[in-house]
C-alpha cells in the first residue's frame, strides 16, 4: 500500500531538491557557528584525532552552514587567513565559512587534517546527513553507512529524527538492525535484531552474521577441568573425522607449542646433510642413504650421540593427542547471540538453497531455449529428409554476421535488430536453398555422403567468414532495452536478453506448429515425411517440399544466429560451439518431432546446468559428463525421448 503513494512523493522531493540545489544558496549568517569557531580556532588549525570529536559534533549541531564547513574541512578546501577567518575555497571563489559572504583578495593557508581527523569528520557528516532535509542526501548517507559501518553510525542512526519517507524509513530500520547485530553492547538487543531479520537472504545480512559465526580452532588439555574459561564453544572436533584428520591435529598442536615438531623427511635430510663426517653420517655411508631405513638408522645414531635434538616419536604424539581436546570456538563470546545467529543462518541457507534452485531453473530454461533455437532448424531437415547438415553451425554463424553487418549499416540498435532478424532469415534461407540445389539433391538416400559433403561446405564457409570478417570477435550489441537484468533479489536474477531469447524460442515453437499444422506447406511436408512416394502420386512435388523445408530450417538457424550473437562473441567458430549440442538435442529428443526437440533441449539444458552447479568452476567436466550421459541415454532409448512411430520410422 505504501509504494504507490511513496513513489510520487519521493520523486517530487527529489525534484524539489534538484531545483533548490542547482544554484548554490548563499549560507545565511549563523551566530552559533561563529561563536564555536571563534572559541576553537586553534584546535581547528591543529586538530588531534583524540580530542576533535566533541568539537566536530558541536559544529555539526549548528546547522547546514556547520555541515558545509565540515565538508570543506574534510575535503581539504578550508583555509585560514592571517586575521583568523575561516574561508571555504572552491573553484568559483572563496566564501567566509561562518557568514557565507564571498571574499576576494584573501590568501588563506589551507588546512590539511590527517586521515584520522578526516574519518571523524566524515563519520559526523554522515550522521548529520541522515537528518538532512534533502531525501537524496539522506539516501546517500544510508548508502555510505551500509558501505562502511561503525559503532558511531549506530549511535547516529538512533539519535536521528524520525524518517518521513516510508521507503527510506524501511531502509533505515533495516540498516539500524544490521548495525545493532554488529555493534550493540546489549546481547538481548542483538538477539532480537537477529531474530527480526532471520530468513532474510540479503547479502548484507549474511555478511553481518558471518563474523559472529567465525570460529577458531584451539587445542586444550583434557585434564584438570577441561573447560576453557569463557570460551563460546561451537563444537568439539573428533580426531580422524572427515574434516579434521590426524595430521591437522598434530599440526595444530605443533603450532600452539604443545608438541615437539615431528621430523619431516625434508628436515631429516637437511639435518643428515649437516652431519656428514668423512663420507659417513652417524656411521652410515652416505651412498646408502637413498634408503629411508638407512636414514632413520643414521638419525638415531646422531640422536644417541646427542648431536641432534630428539624429534617427537609416534608414542609421544599419540599420548599428547589423547590428552587434548580440540575445539572450534566462536570469536563472539555470548552464546545466546551465536545461537540466534546460527539459527538465522540456517534459515537463510535453506531459503537461499531454494532460491538458488529457482535461479538454476531459470538458467536452465534459458540455456534450453538457446539449444532449442539452435537445434530446431537441424531437427526440421533431419526429420524430414534424414539428412544431417553439418553446415548448420555455419548458417548460425552466417545469421550472426548478418546481424553484425546490419548493425554497421544502421546506427539505431533497435531498428537494426528489427531489420537483422528477417534479413538473417532471408540470407540463410537463400544459402540453404543453394546448398540444397547444388549438393544435397544429388546425394539423396546417401546420408553419410551428405554429412561429409556438408562438412566440406562447413569448412569452406568458416574459412570464408574468416577471410571476410577477420579472426577477431565482432560485437553484436543488444539495444539498450535488452541490456541489464531482471533482478528479484540478491540470488535470483536473469539477464533480459535471455528472457528475450526464451520468448523468441516460444515464438518459434508457435510459428513452427502453425506452419506444420495449419498451412498447405506443412500438410505437404508431413505427407512427404510419412511417405514420399504416396505424396508424389498425390501431386505433391517432394523435391520442392524438401527444398522448402531445407530453406526453412536454414532460415531458422540464421535467426538463432542473431539471437546467439547478442550474448556471445561473433566469430567464425561461433557455429562450431553449438553444432554438437544441437545434434545431441535432436538425437536425444527424437527425430522428426518438434516436441522431441523441445524435450531434448530441455533435458540437455537442464542437465548441463545441474551438473555445472555441482562444480561451477569446472565447466569442462560438466560438459564431459553431459556427453557421457547422452551416450548412455542413447543405449536405452536409441530413437530418442519421443520416437517416431509407425511406417515413417522405417523409412
Amino acid at each position, binding site marked *: 500500500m505504501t509504494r504507490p503513494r511513496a513513489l510520487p512523493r519521493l520523486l517530487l522531493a527529489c525534484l524539489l531538491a534538484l531545483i533548490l540545489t542547482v544554484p548554490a544558496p548563499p549560507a545565511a549568517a549563523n551566530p552559533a557557528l561563529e561563536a564555536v569557531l571563534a572559541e576553537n580556532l586553534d584546535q581547528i588549525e591543529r586538530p588531534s584525532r583524540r580530542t576533535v570529536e566533541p568539537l566536530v559534533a558541536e559544529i555539526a549541531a549548528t546547522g547546514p552552514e556547520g555541515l558545509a564547513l565540515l565538508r570543506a574541512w574534510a575535503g581539504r578546501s578550508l583555509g585560514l587567513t592571517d586575521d583568523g577567518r575561516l574561508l571555504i575555497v572552491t573553484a568559483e571563489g572563496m566564501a567566509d565559512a561562518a557568514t557565507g559572504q564571498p571574499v576576494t583578495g584573501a590568501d588563506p593557508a589551507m588546512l590539511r587534517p590527517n586521515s584520522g581527523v578526516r574519518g571523524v569528520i566524515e563519520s559526523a557528516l554522515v550522521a548529520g546527513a541522515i537528518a538532512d532535509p534533502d531525501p537524496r542526501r539522506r539516501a546517500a548517507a544510508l548508502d555510505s553507512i551500509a558501505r562502511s559501518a561503525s559503532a558511531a553510525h549506530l549511535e547516529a542512526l538512533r539519535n536521528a529524527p524520525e524518517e518521513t519517507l516510508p521507503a527510506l524509513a524501511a531502509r533505515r530500520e533495516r540498516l539500524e538492525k544490521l548495525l545493532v547485530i554488529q555493534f550493540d553492547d546489549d546481547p538481548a538487543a542483538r538477539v532480537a535484531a537477529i531474530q527480526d531479520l532471520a530468513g532474510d537472504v540479503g547479502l548484507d545480512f549474511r555478511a553481518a552474521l558471518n563474523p559472529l559465526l567465525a570460529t577458531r580452532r584451539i587445542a586444550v588439555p583434557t585434564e584438570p577441568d577441561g573447560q576453557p574459561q569463557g570460551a563460546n564453544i561451537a563444537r568439539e572436533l573428533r580426531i580422524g573425522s572427515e574434516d579434521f584428520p590426524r595430521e591437522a591435529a598434530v599440526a595444530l598442536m605443533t603450532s600452539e607449542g604443545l608438541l615437539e615438531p615431528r621430523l619431516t623427511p625434508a628436515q631429516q635430510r637437511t639435518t643428515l646433510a649437516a652431519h656428514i663426517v668423512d663420507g659417513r653420517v652417524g656411521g652410515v655411508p652416505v651412498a646408502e642413504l637413498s634408503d629411508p631405513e638407512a636414514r632413520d638408522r643414521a638419525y638415531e645414531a646422531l640422536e644417541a650421540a646427542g648431536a641432534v635434538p630428539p624429534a617427537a616419536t609416534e608414542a609421544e604424539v599419540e599420548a599428547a593427542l589423547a590428552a587434548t581436546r580440540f575445539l572450534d570456538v566462536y570469536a563472539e563470546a555470548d552464546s545466546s547471540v551465536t545461537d540466534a545467529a546460527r539459527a538465522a543462518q540456517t534459515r537463510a541457507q535453506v531459503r537461499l538453497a531454494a532460491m538458488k534452485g529457482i535461479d538454476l531453473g531459470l538458467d536452465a530454461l534459458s540455456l534450453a531455449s538457446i539449444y532449442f533455437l539452435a537445434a530446431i532448424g537441424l531437427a526440421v531437415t533431419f526429420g524430414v529428409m534424414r539428412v544431417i547438415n553439418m553446415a548448420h553451425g555455419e548458417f548460425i554463424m552466417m545469421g550472426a554476421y548478418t546481424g553484425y553487418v546490419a548493425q554497421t549499416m544502421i546506427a539505431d540498435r533497435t531498428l537494426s535488430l528489427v531489420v537483422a532478424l528477417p534479413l538473417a532469415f532471408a540470407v540463410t534461407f537463400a544459402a540453404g536453398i543453394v546448398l540444397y540445389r547444388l549438393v544435397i539433391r544429388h546425394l539423396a538416400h546417401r546420408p553419410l*555422403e551428405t554429412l561429409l559433403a556438408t562438412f566440406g561446405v562447413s569448412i569452406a564457409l568458416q574459412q570464408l567468414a574468416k577471410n571476410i570478417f577477420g579472426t577477431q570477435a565482432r560485437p553484436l550489441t543488444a539495444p539498450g532495452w535488452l541490456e541489464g537484468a531482471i533482478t528479484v533479489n540478491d540470488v535470483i536474477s536473469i539477464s533480459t536478453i535471455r528472457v528475450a531469447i526464451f520468448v523468441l524460442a516460444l515464438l518459434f515453437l508457435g510459428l513452427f506448429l502453425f506452419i506444420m499444422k495449419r498451412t498447405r506447406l506443412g500438410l505437404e511436408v508431413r505427407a512427404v515425411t510419412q511417405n514420399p512416394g504416396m505424396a508424389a502420386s498425390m501431386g505433391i512435388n517432394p523435391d520442392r517440399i524438401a527444398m522448402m523445408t531445407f530453406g526453412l530450417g536454414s532460415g531458422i538457424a540464421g535467426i538463432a544466429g542473431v539471437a546467439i550473437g547478442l550474448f556471445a562473441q561473433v566469430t567464425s567458430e561461433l557455429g562450431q560451439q553449438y553444432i554438437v549440442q544441437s545434434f545431441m538435442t535432436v538425437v536425444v529428443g527424437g527425430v522428426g518431432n518438434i516436441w522431441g526437440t523441445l524435450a531434448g533441449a530441455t533435458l540437455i539444458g537442464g542437465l548441463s546446468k545441474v551438473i555445472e552447479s555441482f562444480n561451477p568452476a569446472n565447466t569442462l567436466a560438466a560438459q564431459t559428463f553431459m556427453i557421457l550421459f547422452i551416450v548412455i541415454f542413447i543405449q536405452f532409448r536409441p530413437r530418442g525421448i519421443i520416437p517416431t512411430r509407425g511406417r515413417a520410422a522405417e523409412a
Partner: protein
Amino acid sequence: MTRKPFILRNPSVLVVLAALAVFTAAVTLLSQAYGTGAIPTSMVKVLGKTLCLALAAVAMDLVWGYLGILSLGQMAFFALGGYMIGQWLMYARTETIVAASLANNPIPPTAQELQEAVANQIFGVVGSSDLPLVWSFAHSLTAQLVLVVAVPGLLALVFGWLAFRSRVNGVYLSILTQAMTLALALWLFQNDSGFRGNNGLSGLQNIPGLEGVSQASLSVWFLWASAAALAAFYVLAAWLVSGKCGSVIRAIRDDETRVRFLGYPVEGFKLVVFTLAAMITAVAGALYYPQAGIINPAELMPIASIYLAVWVAIGGRGRLYGAMIGAIVVSLLSSWFTGGRAPDLHLPGYVVSWVDWWQVALGLGFVLVTLFAPKGIAGVFDRLAGWRPPARHGRDLGPDQGSLKEQEARA
C-alpha cells in the same frame, strides 16, 4: 583345388609394399644422417608423420570403407596412443634430468623423493605436485607400450559394444562417435584430469636413453619404424578384407539386416573390426607424436577426425591404397599450402593468398569429390585397370558351360 597365395590374389599389396620400400630407401639416401642431406631433418619428420597419418587412414578405411561405420572419433584413438607413449617419454626423460640435479645434493635421494621431484617437475605447470593414478605405469616402457594398444582398444570395445548392441547405426552412430571424442577432449582439457590440461605433454622428440643420437638420425629411425608399421598393418588389413571374412564385412556395409538374417554375428564382426582399427590407429599415434614432439587435447577435437574422413574420401573409400594415397596427398598438400610456401595466385583485381584460401578450396574440392568422384583418387586406378584387355587363356568352353574359358575353369 589350391588357392593362389594371398599376395598374388592382391597384387596391389605388392605394389604398395614396393613403393613404400623405394620411398623409405630414397628418403634415407637423401637424408642428412645417412645420405646426401638433400632432405632436411624437419622434412624427414614431416614425411614420417605423414606415413603415420596414412596408417590411421588405412584403419579408418577398414572401419568406414569396408565396414560402413563413419567413425568421427578415430583420431581420439590416435591421440590416446600418443598420450600413452608420451607418458613414458616425458616421465623417463624428466626422471633422468631430475636424478642428475638431485645427484648434486649431499645425500642421495630416496626413490620416493625422486618420484616426488619428477611429479613436481611434470605437474607444476597445472599447479599440482602429486603423480596422478593414471601415471602409475609411466616409469615402465613395456607397460606403456601395452597401454598404447590396450587403452584405445578397450575404449573402442566398450563403446562399440554399447553402440552396436543397441543397433545404433548410420548417422546416429557418426554423431555418437563425435560426441565420444569431444567428451574425451573436454575431459583432457581439464587441469585435474592428470594429463596436464591444455599444456599437453611436450618434449616428446627427446627419447630417453638415446640422448647421444642426433635428431637427424632419430627422424630417419622413426621414418623406418613408421614405414614398417604401415607395411605390416597394410598387409594385415588387406588380409582381413580379402577372403570370406572380408566378404562378410563388406556385406555388413551393404545390408546389415540381410547378413544378420543369414546367421552371421554382425555385432561380433563389427566389434572386432572396430576395435582392431582403433588399435592400429593408436599405434600410428604412438609413432606420430614422438616425431611431432608435443601432444595436447586439441588433437582430439572432432574436427581432426573429420579431416581423417575427408582424406579417406578423397583418396577413395573401400580401397586400402586409396585411403593411404588420400592421407599422404591431402595432408602434404595442406601443410604446403597453409605453410605459406605456396605461391600466391594473382587474379585480376585480387591476390589469392593460399594461407587464407586453401581451406575454402579444400572444402569445395571435397564437395566436388563427393558429388562427382565417389571413388576418389583410387577410382583413377580402377579406370586404368579397365583399359587393359583382360588376360584370358585357353579355348572357350562352349555355349553351354558359361563364360569361363578352359584354364580358368580348371583353376
